[in-house]
């Protein structure tokens, strides 16, 4: 048998005697992340959450939420009546039964019609600038509610099937946790016994701290923070919230067996687990060609099933009054139908849908003109939607962040609350 490796310069017999007596507890193993649990009861609970349904690519809202039958821009679809005081597209029949829960803001008017810029603007309330990275919705809401949820071990900002936008100057601790809608988190299973992992962590922690102490910049500390969060999550019971497959078959089918349906169902489970912000992505809205066929046969059936299921389920479980739901993309599409039966990028007049968390449902806020090319009432922006959602979640609009350079910035970029939603 090979001799045990004896440290250089050390008397072998001496070393072995220590070896025999030293227990595995010699290493001050890190404890799993339950440190915040102790003062759980002292804090006021805010159980409110928000779900953003993000329509990547820019959905044509005048074919879904603000139809213009008869106008030369109106396209092929007909409006139908709903359970609210609004009409929507005939290809959204299930959602029509849920419209008492949702409000359509029909007077959105923004100015970013490039995917990257529009995605940033609608997620942050700020236009992209060169010398500043603004925090996105999820990061802001997670940041504002996290302290009130000491029991939460799942990351407070989860994005399903997409990338969302980053935490900006709030730092990597508030970055979105990106998962697939199948509920399987890659590499979650630790490949060794817990005590051994903790001992490895102790050694790792020493290297980490050494590097951080050398004053080399933020990235070193961010890395350390993420390790701690990862460790907490690996051992958390709460991770079962991601397992949509554990839902009864009929519930899964009600949401839809596609990835967006699973994502919406996962969002409900995460709300129940106390996650304050969940984004679910549905892509494929960038319809420069063949838009009516693609909408009626591909996107709208998927959207209609999952979105209506989400509202219905949240309402039935009594969660809707504490959960804000938003539906939006980076912009919408031109009223003019182009030569390829498609619509191009358009930001000047379009719709966003919100509901839940005490916001009025069944209404349309604002109006566009007869062919949808202009907003005829007070125009609303990304900031205004964000301010309204923050209000619905009980987050003060007086909240001010300080960027790393010391610049103060008001939450939601000083957007104004859309009053019809709360009247």
């Amino acid at each position, binding site marked *: *048998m*090979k*001799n*045990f*490796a004896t*440290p*250089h310069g*050390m008397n072998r017999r001496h*070393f072995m005697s*220590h*070896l025999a*007596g*030293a*227990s*595995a*507890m*010699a*290493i001050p193993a890190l404890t799993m992340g339950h440190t915040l649990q102790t003062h759980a009861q002292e804090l006021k609970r805010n159980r409110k959450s928000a779900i953003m349904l993000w329509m990547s*690519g*820019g959905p044509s809202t005048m074919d879904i939420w603000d139809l213009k039958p008869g106008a030369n821009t109106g396209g092929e679809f007909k409006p139908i009546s709903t359970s609210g005081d609004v009409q929507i597209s005939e290809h959204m029949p299930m959602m029509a039964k849920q419209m008492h829960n949702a409000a359509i803001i029909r007077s959105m008017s923004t100015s970013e019609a*490039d*995917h990257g810029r529009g995605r940033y603007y609608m997620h942050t309330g700020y236009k992209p600038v*060169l*010398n*500043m990275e603004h925090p996105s919705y999820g990061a802001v809401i997670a940041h504002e509610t996290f302290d009130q949820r000491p029991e939460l071990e799942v*990351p407070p900002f989860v994005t399903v099937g*997409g*990338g969302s936008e980053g935490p900006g100057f709030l730092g*990597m601790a508030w*970055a979105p946790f*990106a998962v697939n809608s199948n509920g399987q988190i*890659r*590499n*979650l299973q*630790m*490949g060794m*016994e817990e005590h051994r992992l903790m*001992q490895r962590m102790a*050694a*790792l922690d020493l*290297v980490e701290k*050494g*590097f951080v102490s050398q*004053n*080399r*910049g933020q*990235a*070193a500390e961010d890395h350390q923070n*993420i*390790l701690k*969060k990862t460790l907490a999550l*690996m051992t958390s019971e709460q991770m079962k919230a991601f397992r949509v497959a554990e839902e009864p078959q009929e519930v899964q089918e009600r949401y839809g067996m596609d990835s967006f349906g699973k994502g919406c169902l996962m969002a409900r489970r995460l709300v129940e687990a106390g996650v304050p912000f969940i984004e679910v992505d549905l*892509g*494929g809205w*960038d319809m420069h*060609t063949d838009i009516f066929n693609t909408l009626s046969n591909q996107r709208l059936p998927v959207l209609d099933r999952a979105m209506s299921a989400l509202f219905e389920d949240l309402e039935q479980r009594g969660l809707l009054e504490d959960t804000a739901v938003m539906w939006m993309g980076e912009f919408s599409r031109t009223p*003019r139908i182009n030569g390829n039966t498609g619509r191009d990028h358009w930001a000047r007049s379009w719709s966003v849908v919100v509901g839940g968390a005490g916001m009025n449902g069944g209404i349309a806020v604002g109006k566009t003109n007869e062919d949808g090319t202009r907003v005829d009432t007070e125009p609303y922006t990304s900031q205004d939607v964000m301010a309204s959602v923050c209000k619905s979640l009980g987050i003060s609009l007086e909240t001010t962040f300080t*960027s*790393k*350079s010391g610049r103060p910035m008001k939450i939601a970029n000083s957007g104004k609350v859309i009053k019809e939603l709360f009247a």
Partner: protein
Amino acid sequence: MAERLCSQLLALVALMLATSPLTVLSAPRGPNDFGIPQVAKINEELRKTWDAYELKPSQAATESEWCRRVYLDIIGRIPSVDELQEFTKNRSATKKADLVGKLLYDDKYTEEYARNWTTVWTTVLIGRAGGTERNSLTNREGMQKYLRDGFARNKPYNEMVDELVTATGSNRPGAENFNGAVNFLAMKVNDEKGTQATADTAKIFLGLQVQCTQCHNHPFNDWEQQKFWEFNAFFRQTRALRQFTPGTRDILGSELVDQDFAGEGGTPSDAEIYYELRNGLLKAAYPVFVDETEIGKSGFVNEVNRRDKLGELIQQSEYMDMCVANRYWSHFFGYGFTKPIDDMGPHNPASHPELLEYLGQQVREHSYNLKELIRWITLSEAYSLTSRVTKANEKDDPLLGETPKFTHFYLRQMQAEELYESLLVATRAAETSGSYEAQERSKSQWLSQFVLAFGTDDGGESTTFNGTIPQALMMFNGELIKNATDAKKGSFLWNIANSNMKPQQQIDYLFQAGLARQPTKDELAITYQLFVARATGGGNKKTIDTAAASMAALQDIWWAVLNSNEFIINH
């Protein structure tokens, strides 16, 4: 009881280590320009900014840190222990210049140099997801093969740009008429009148962001809608023809061709295109380059090949020179002279305009040999500085929204590809795996877990290998790290455990391999504790044989090294 014994052990270890050599910092000295005028100019221009902002640069990085950095940035992986020691033991005054020269021009490194820059440029040209979509007209392997051949031969940059802009032929290796360069444009010319080809060509090779002007005049820069469509007109003879697998509707590949363009007015000898103003009026446009140079209006390819003309005009533009200088600077420093690097122009002034212009000119004067540009950048004073921030330069923090002044090295995380290659080298796994193509395929497969595609017409995407939880989970529990820490016979760790190195040398070896430094006293102490824990069976109270315990402890240590911030962050 156990605790008391252990603290005795610790004390012994500490005593024993008190005499071990510590890492020696290079003494600070004035900027060395290695007798290269371009290096002297970079040093001079940066010093001007430091003086103007009353900033003092940090000290030089340690030799090992610099060595690790230069391997990572030039050939895409960290140095092996042998390579590191070869450099640190070298006493020559020109050893830095020699190492850079070796990495750039020694045949031994040609393949790795080409692989690294192929990775970088593939991401620039077709993104991380390009060619992985079902029925894509892009062939990722074709793109990579084209780039790899070019970088292995050190093809002048202007030739590469010309070939990418003007390429015709089939997109997949092995096909008749194969020309991998077509993969840059293959997915970008058919849809939406080639607007994606327009936007990407202007952005990638000229540093001009024009995509917003497709619909309206740009809110920030001088570009107008007219200019966008005039640039777009260069691409309108071009089509990507689909090639199907015989008997199916599955796309096998594509062929990029130039065809006569009749124009939207139906007069091929005067082939105009139309675009719509916001007020609904239609306007006509012909191919006109960004500097107002006009070319013939004919749509007949044999009279005017529009892309050939575009290739010539781009090569004449000084924007091309500055754009590549900016891109390469940003590769080595983490920040370019503008942010983003591919948005240059009066609306977005550069942080060091004179230097940017100078580097662009020098690239042109040196026949677009990018290896020379790399040499100048990596031998500059700024590139040699430590990432440790001092009171005298802590204001220089681009994360605060400040323009970078380069008074210290900015931390940046390895790319996923760099991690992969580094582990192959650090654990010498590459020596036993299959062919180049097979290796590349398994790498691509591993990389795909991090890609998030947005599904938009501009090919928007992001990566989850960005320092967040999915990355940490992969490092903790993923296959790659499991393999790197494997204990089976013949593995990296097995070889170390069974070498004639003493235990402390083994630990030292692991720290050198991962972090290019020796362990500190505290780190050594905790590694001995891991030996103890493994020998006593951890918390299980069962005793295991000492060879196995020793092996297990090495696994623990190597795992901790690989998971550390110091390992993954280029510093």
